[in-house]
């Protein structure tokens, strides 16, 4: 912290200077109005103080030009605030494509972070400076919120679906993160530290501490056979369920004729509520895994399914998903319907 009594937290992400700039603009406008109103009230209060007990004021009923002015001027300023805020928000809600992806799982009352290489941390998060970081947020129980004051960003962690947030750390150091959505008894101590490291230090840290940790793809692959997914989702497309090769991020044709992009949320839903969206040409046979998998396991399965993105997609025939293969692959041009 800069001084004994700082007015704002450290600026350590790409969003921090933007949010602070917006804050300065709003504070200036607010201070201008508050000061104007206060000065007017205090001035009138003394200037027009009643001098004779039975005196009355000058009967002024209003002035429509003034009314118009103090409707239009605040409206224009308000629209300025809205637009400036909207620009930053849209930027924040639009994750860039080249991100370092880390999964964050909140549960009463701790945070687990899972790195792409399988490294796990509890109530700690290490990220490299200057790299766009995307967090995928999942909750095991109630709603939490991942909040990093030095980055000026937060996002709720909602059970039952994934939220994402992103930032680009700009300054090495250690910064608080908090849970800022009330989540029960130990809400206040559900926090930790983000360590922003120079890329070389980060690389060293990654390699130095990853030993022995299970890679999520490997964990997912193991689960895939343990939970018997593999008995139907055969890679060559001859199973009772579609092959998952090349499916991630591709369009999937559903039984009702619509298509859906197979993102994390779709994969999650298909695991927990298999009958919500049935792939065209297949029967709703899959049992639900609701309550049988932890959020971490779901993320591991997702990581495994993502790893199949580069695997060869089976051609049609022999009971393979007829339409899904055709609708596949973002790379290849797709035929409609």
């Amino acid at each position, binding site marked *: 912290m800069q001084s004994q009594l700082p007015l704002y937290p450290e600026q350590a992400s790409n969003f921090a200077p933007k*949010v602070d700039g917006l804050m300065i603009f709003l504070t200036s406008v607010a201070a201008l109005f508050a000061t104007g109103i206060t000065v*007017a009230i205090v001035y009138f209060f003394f200037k027009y103080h009643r001098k004779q007990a039975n005196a009355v004021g000058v009967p002024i009923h*209003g002035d429509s030009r003034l009314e118009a002015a103090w409707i239009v001027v605040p409206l224009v300023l308000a629209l300025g605030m809205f637009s400036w805020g909207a620009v930053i928000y849209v930027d924040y809600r639009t994750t860039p494509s080249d991100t370092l992806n880390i999964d964050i799982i909140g549960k009463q009352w701790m945070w687990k972070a899972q790195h792409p290489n399988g490294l796990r941390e509890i109530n700690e998060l290490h990220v490299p400076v200057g790299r766009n970081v995307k967090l995928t947020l999942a909750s095991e129980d109630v709603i939490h919120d991942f909040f990093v004051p030095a980055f000026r960003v937060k996002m709720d962690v909602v059970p039952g679906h994934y939220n994402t947030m992103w930032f680009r750390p700009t300054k090495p150091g250690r910064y608080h993160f908090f849970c800022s959505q009330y989540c029960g008894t130990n809400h206040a101590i559900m926090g930790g530290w983000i360590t922003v490291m120079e890329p070389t230090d980060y690389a060293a840290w990654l390699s130095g501490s990853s030993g022995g940790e299970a890679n999520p793809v490997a964990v997912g692959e193991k689960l895939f056979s343990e939970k018997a997914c593999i008995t139907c989702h055969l890679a060559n497309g001859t199973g009772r369920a579609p092959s998952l090769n090349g499916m991630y991020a591709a369009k999937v044709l559903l039984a009702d004729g619509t298509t859906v992009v197979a993102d994390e949320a779709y994969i999650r839903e298909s695991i927990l509520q298999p009958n919500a969206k049935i792939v065209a040409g297949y029967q709703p046979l899959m049992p639900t895994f609701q309550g049988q998998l932890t959020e971490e396991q779901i993320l591991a399965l997702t990581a495994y399914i993502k790893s199949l993105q580069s695997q060869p997609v089976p051609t049609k025939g022999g009971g393979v998903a007829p339409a899904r293969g055709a609708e596949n692959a973002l790379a290849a041009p797709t035929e409609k319907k």
Partner: protein
Amino acid sequence: MSQTPPSAEPKFPRDHYLNATYGIKSWLLTTDHKRIALLYLISVTFFFFIGGLFATLIRIHLLTPTGALVTPETYNKLFTMHGVAMIFFFLIPSIPAVLGNFLIPPMIGAKDLAFPKINLLSWYIYVVGGCFVLYSFSTGGLDTGWTFYTPLSSVYSNSAVTPAVLGIFINGFSSILTGLNFIVTIHTMRAPGMTWFRLPLFAWAHYATSLVMILGTPVVAITLLLAGLERMFHLGFFNPAMGGDPILFQHLFWFYSHPAVYIMILPSMGVVSEIIPTFARKPIFGYAFIAASSIAIAVIGFLVWAHHMFVTGESTYAALAFSFLSYLVAIPSAVKVFNWTSTLYKGSISWDAPMLYALGFIGLFTIGGLTGLFLACLGLDIHIHDTYFVIAHFHYIMVGGAVMGYVGGIHFWWPKITGRLYSEPMSRFAAVTLFVGFNLTFFPQFILGYLGMPRRYHSYPPEFQVLNVLSTAGASILALGYLLPMIYLTWSMRYGKVAGPNPWPATGLEWKMDSPPPTENFHVTPVVDWEPYDFNNRPDLGLAAGRPLAPAHGDD
């Protein structure tokens, strides 16, 4: 018109609503809107004390980073019960059920509300709902936060959630019935000559409030009932493990609970709109704009709820729409502030306590309203959402605004309610104490919030301590500001000077009644032949009518 100027020593009336009948039964079975108002006054003051006690413990606890007083469980219960007691059982009923009940009939020249028995029923419903909530508080407490977010409240909490949500569900009907009563009364029972644009702005504000009460309360009542049913019978409305959607709860909850803020602040604005012209002794500036802005706030206020949910992952487009609408709702509030301030211009301003409270209201409400713009701003909300910035903002609106207006209104109409005057120096001192104490308590919390201290924390990193200590120190001054009026107002009931019908004097019809008024308010139905807040054409007020202080020029 029989009123005499205040120079002659006023006499306490022989017969009035307080001595019309005696005995506990005459109070518990009364249908007199004035007596019901006093029943409400006692009950909301009781809940204010409870809520205030919890607040005191919270502020003491936060003196040290590790928490000075209680366990995390207890702390969570304290802030939850503080919120539930204050919002549902003090702030929402305070001005409408006490001052609105007492004043709306006489203000429009009526003898009572349209449905006197329903009025009494609404108090009993309030009491029953209150008992459920007190039962929850005393048998395990409540630790969900006043927002009852699911699935924490419906699945995970181990506290007495069910009686609390039932209590709030029941209490909702009290609000609905009161709102219904006000709307029907204002439509059908106005005295001859009391046209819509001669209505006191207090009545306009209550009309707008009643609309919100009737349209919004059923939604929150049902929502909390659903959360209660999910908890009791393990149904899956909001619980994602059973296919429910916890975000749906938030939409339904805020659909009421954001407009509920306007239930709290609109009546307070009505009070201020009465006090300012009275103590500036001139017509209110822009009557029609103030009246219309109340309605605009009530209507647009229904369209902004999801600004409480900018970081839940709601769609970007929804966030943009709700942010935009939230900026729109700020405009009518700004219009009010500008009009009140302009009313002071060339007034004949007295420094009585009600005026000090009203001016304090404008200052605090202005800060509360302006900081609302920060939270409506999407790019800023991603940082300050759910921090102490929010706490500071809504206390400026609800305490600095709504409670300041309520206390100011109590001071303004106290002579009418009790027939007696309180100590002037004491009341001025209390008003200033309240204003200073409030700012010392809550201003530091804006900075705390921007620094990143989340709300609902029983312990916090040490760098936040200085501002927390400042806030607690301010709270002790604030507490004094609340205790003083309780003492001197109570004292005045017996020892205060006799007020007479119109001590200030003010222009409203309610000041044509004796103080305290007779049970039937008016012996003869009054006929209104004057414009609102017109001091210049009212010889009955005993003022230097038509003799303005400064030479009039072409202003109007």
